[in-house]
């Protein structure tokens, strides 16, 4: 994991291996609350994407000026500034969609995922990797929001992006706000299942190799994070 990753790997890492919603399980409030339609998901996804990239770049640029003891408040203020910017832009140019997404754009400021990326990545790395890491994380969040939004809009109202596809409403339950919990939970379980299957295959290989070396194999002996980070 310590090895330097290419920009391509950084972006892919954010979208798949460390997807903020499904894998890291961070910043789930909007994923549950406002993904009743795809367009809401896209709207908030873009806002988070912008804030993540902008604050990653900002912190990466000024990382040497920040005193380590006040770094978390500094991150928070940087994020708050960019959130204010995107909040005003959205309110001015897309008033209708903004009214739907409501308070959640402002709440981006308290998203754990952005602070975490700044702390773990942007404050230690140079500008370019920080940009691509922010890009990947933002894109991963956007993809997650779109996936949940698609499932809920399609199953709940039979439409996608507002276009009528089925012509009837299969399960109105999915547009109820609380269905977000069920969709996110089921999707997480699904991705865990994929990972488990993947891991089992890999472990099978390792066990095969270890048998030759007479070494015990098993999950307890692997370093955490070895198996599922490509």
């Amino acid at each position, binding site marked *: 994991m310590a090895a330097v990753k290419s920009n391509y790997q950084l972006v892919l890492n954010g979208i798949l291996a460390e997807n903020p919603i499904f894998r890291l399980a961070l910043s*789930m409030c909007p994923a549950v609350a406002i993904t009743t339609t795809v367009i809401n998901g896209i709207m908030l996804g873009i806002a988070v994407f912008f804030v993540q990239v902008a604050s990653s770049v900002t912190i990466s640029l000024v990382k040497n000026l920040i005193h380590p003891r006040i770094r978390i408040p500094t991150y928070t*203020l940087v994020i708050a500034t960019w959130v*204010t910017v995107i909040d005003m832009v959205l309110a001015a140019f897309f008033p209708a969609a903004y009214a739907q997404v409501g308070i959640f754009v*402002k709440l981006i*400021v*308290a998203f754990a995922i952005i602070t975490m990326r700044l702390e773990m990545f942007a404050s230690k790395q140079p500008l370019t990797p920080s940009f691509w890491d922010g890009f990947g994380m933002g894109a991963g969040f956007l993809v997650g929001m779109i996936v949940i939004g698609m499932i809920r809009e399609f199953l709940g109202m039979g439409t996608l992006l507002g276009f009528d596809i089925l012509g009837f409403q299969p399960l109105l339950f999915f547009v109820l706000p*609380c*269905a977000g919990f069920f969709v996110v939970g089921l999707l997480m379980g699904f991705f865990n299942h994929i990972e488990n299957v993947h891991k089992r295959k890999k472990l099978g290989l390792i066990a095969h190799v270890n048998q030759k070396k007479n070494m015990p194999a098993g999950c307890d002996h692997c370093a955490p994070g070895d198996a599922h980070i490509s």
Partner: protein
Amino acid sequence: MTIALLATLTSAELFAASNNLVSGTAFGDVDEIVVTFARPVTNNQLLERESYQVFEEPDPDIRLEIESITLSDDGSRATLRFSETLNQSSAYVINIKGLADEGGALSFTVKQSYLGHLFTILITAMLIKNFVFTKYLGLCVFMGTSKKKKTAKGMGLTFALVMAISASMSWVIYNFLMIPFKLTFLQIVVFIGLVALSVQAVDTILRKLNPALFASFGIYLVLITTNCVIIAVPLMLANEGFGFWESLMLAIGAGSGFMLALYLMASVRERLDVALVPESFKGLPVAFLVAGQFALAFLGFSGMSI
């Protein structure tokens, strides 16, 4: 002599005199207002629907339709029944025209007592509009700290404390600094700064005053800054234009609602540990499904008013 006395009465006194006629007002059933008079009234005008004008205080243009009026036998109490349900947390203005013998029109306001109003805000924020289960806020911390009941209690208490402190500070700063200097666009930056400040303050004070308590609560303090509820409450207060005590009640309600949600969830998750859960669903996925069922249950509170 009576005529002379009446002639000297100013209009303000007339208004006061007519106000004295109404000795008490209260909400009856969901669609009723009960007006109590200081002395028996035997005016037929009171039974005419046309002589009333009733509206909610913020919008005088929207008149409420009265369905029926009943006067008690001794003429001391009138019950107005409306065709729609009243919102008991807001104030209603009632004008009664043509009470000729009482000196012109009569106007008074019906509202809950202030303490009742505060209580409504508290219960609403805690149960009916629970921040976790009906507004879906604070989920990261909610999922992270609801594994054990002990942790849940600690986190909930710390959170409610910091919430009350930061909400009252942001109310003061918002109303006395940001509005007068037209700085409301800085909401987000200022509120998150205040949250960070109060977390730091509670951290320092607790460390000095009660090291034992700090040892058990200290770890949760760090988590609070990344909880969206803590920033959502000041933002909502700024939108709604609440007074100080109302804000404090909302903050305490939100904090204790969060604690309640954490405790409920922790009780279930302690049991889940010994249950047979499919391997892929262990941990967070099944917690989400449980939270979904809680949210369904809390949906039953929606639309309720106290």
